[in-house]
């Protein structure tokens, strides 16, 4: 305890130097946490899972994938034709719909990115939502039930709710029950819809996504034809992807073969890949950016933390050589001097890291509602809870490594040499 107090007092003995070192570390750890938050989500999405395997069926030769809706039913059955063929344990179709909440002023905030789905599948097939428990699950189940009953319903992501209410809300549920009109954009032009907000996705992954009932969406294409006398360009190609769930890798391999060889899906041809590789190919265009973040930006920040703390501790040790020598004279063992110096840098680095991770989590998740970083189909990234220990670990480890040499030099201080004045 007394030793810990001594460490603390040494750290605050030169407040300006300590504060500057802490500030630099806080900023750099902030950058590292943001980078790792983005990478950890991308890693999670692109890592193959061994159980509850998700397969993704898309158009083989075209991005974005556009399949006829007639593919939906047979693909949901895994193109099983013969007895003994593998059937997916669950499935879900996704039809994208991009619109704006304000056709006069199209901004990022007014954009509404929806997927038209079979409502019940939200609970069983959407990544992360299938793991909900307790109140979150009960609440979402209630919203899904209403979406099944009200075809014009929409379940919004939290960011949409906040944008619609034009304020930073701590209670976005105020939006439930309100009606919104949206205008189709780009290839969805002409598909203008009216929705009633029936619920909200739980905070996190789906903050920027909305789910609508696919029956209502498909009917809109019929209505377009009725009203204009023309078929909408997307009418025969408005199925974007089909998710399939299988129990294991082996089943997936057979299922993929079954689907890709099925004659029914020849024009346009389809491909069946794992969700992870699906995400990976989607992220292919950002390969260099992701590589740079992972292998240049984050290591550069870590190295800078190391240098900053090494510099601060080196100066401190150099200034206190006599003190170290006195402690040795008093009987402090070399390892105790080493521990004293390492303890000081650990306190500095881990403390700054903790401050940084706590602050980053609070600011990005709570105050900003996620970090805007549009990459592939992700708009915002949340800082994971694990980041609360990344900060202290990163700061502490970098500080420890940076102070190894100065600490070793302090450990080896020779009292007789420090006080050398041959008389």
């Amino acid at each position: 305890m007394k030793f810990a107090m001594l460490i603390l007092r040494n750290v605050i003995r030169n407040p300006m130097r300590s504060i500057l070192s802490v500030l630099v570390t806080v900023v750099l750890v902030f950058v590292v946490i943001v980078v790792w938050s983005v990478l950890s989500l991308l890693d999670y999405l692109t890592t193959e899972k061994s159980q509850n395997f998700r397969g993704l069926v898309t158009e083989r030769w075209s991005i974005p994938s556009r399949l006829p809706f007639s593919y939906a039913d047979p693909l949901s059955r895994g193109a099983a034709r013969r007895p003994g063929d593998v059937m997916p344990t669950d499935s879900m179709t996704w039809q994208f719909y991009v619109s704006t909440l304000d056709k006069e002023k199209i901004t990022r905030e007014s954009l509404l990115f929806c997927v038209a789905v079979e409502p019940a599948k939200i609970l069983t097939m959407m990544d992360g939502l299938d793991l909900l428990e307790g109140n979150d699950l009960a609440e979402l189940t209630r919203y899904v039930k209403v979406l099944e009953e009200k075809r014009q319903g929409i379940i919004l992501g939290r960011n949409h709710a906040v944008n619609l209410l034009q304020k930073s809300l701590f209670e976005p549920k105020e939006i439930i029950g309100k009606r919104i009109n949206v205008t189709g954009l780009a290839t969805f032009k002409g598909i203008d819809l009216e929705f009633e907000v029936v619920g909200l996705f739980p905070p996190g992954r789906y903050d920027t996504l909305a789910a609508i009932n696919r029956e209502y969406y498909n009917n809109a294409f019929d209505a377009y034809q009725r009203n204009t006398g023309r078929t909408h360009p997307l009418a025969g190609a408005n199925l974007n992807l089909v998710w399939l769930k299988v129990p294991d890798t082996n089943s997936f391999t057979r299922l993929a073969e079954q689907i890709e060889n099925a004659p029914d899906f020849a024009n346009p041809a389809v491909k069946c890949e794992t969700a992870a590789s699906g995400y990976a190919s989607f992220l292919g265009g950002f390969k260099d950016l992701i590589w740079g973040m992972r292998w240049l930006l984050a290591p550069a920040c870590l190295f800078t933390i190391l240098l900053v703390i090494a510099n601060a501790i080196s100066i401190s040790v150099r200034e206190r050589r006599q003190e170290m020598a006195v402690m040795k004279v008093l009987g402090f063992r070399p390892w105790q001097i080493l521990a004293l110096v390492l303890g000081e840098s650990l306190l500095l680095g881990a403390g700054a890291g903790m401050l940084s991770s706590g602050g980053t989590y609070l600011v990005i998740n709570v105050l900003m509602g996620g970090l805007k970083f549009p990459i592939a189909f992700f708009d915002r990234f949340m800082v994971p809870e694990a980041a609360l220990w990344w900060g202290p670990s990163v700061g502490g480890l970098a500080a420890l490594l940076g102070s190894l040499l100065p600490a070793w030099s302090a450990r080896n201080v020779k009292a007789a040499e420090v006080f050398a004045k041959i008389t």
Partner: protein
Amino acid sequence: MTLVQPGEPSTATRSTPIVRVRHVHKYFRRGSEQIDVLHDLSVDVPSGEFLALMGPSGSGKTTLLNLVAGLDTPSEGEVWVGDQLVSAMSESQLARWRTRHIGFIFQFYHLLPVLSAYENVELPLLLLPLSASERRRQVNTALELVGLGHRMRHRPGQLSGGQQQRVGIARAIVTDPTLIVADEPTGDLDARSAEEILDLLGELRRVLHKTIILVTHDPRAASRADRILHLEKGQLVVANGGGGS
């Protein structure tokens, strides 16, 4: 008075020698050059003696003091303190041994500026298996003994030079060491403070029967000792009786 000529162990001790230095050589290498600091030096210090080491700069006084205090090891020869062969100990063994057996008083006090007088004195006790209440009792006793019971919470920067040296002395005696070594303890003090510190050292010797080795340039300080040894070019040249006893 005890003087051991080089190569000739003492027989004329008043009591059992607590420090025995035997045929000690100490030299440093600077490139290919060998610099002799101590040359075949032998000396005994009886228990309870107040010994002063004098000599010109570069004569090896501090080096001898460092060898006796286990801060340095001889190039040749043996240094015994009590029944311990100090010159053969490892750095860690020496550190542990110093905590219990050596009280060191520095010329420039060398108190830790971030700690109060109380905490500075308590520092060596943290290395011993003592309870908080035992530590408190010992620190209080040591500070009272040097007359600083009322300055315990002051930091070194808030104390005068003489007071800082008193804290240094309290720190040196708080572990009740076998031997107190003082390297020019009055060298940085005004005459009055120096007198007070020398009185205090004399009292430690008289009341607590501590063995004290004092390195000094100051003949007045040396005159307080029981015995004065003069070193020159790493060898004992002459011994005088001090006025301490």
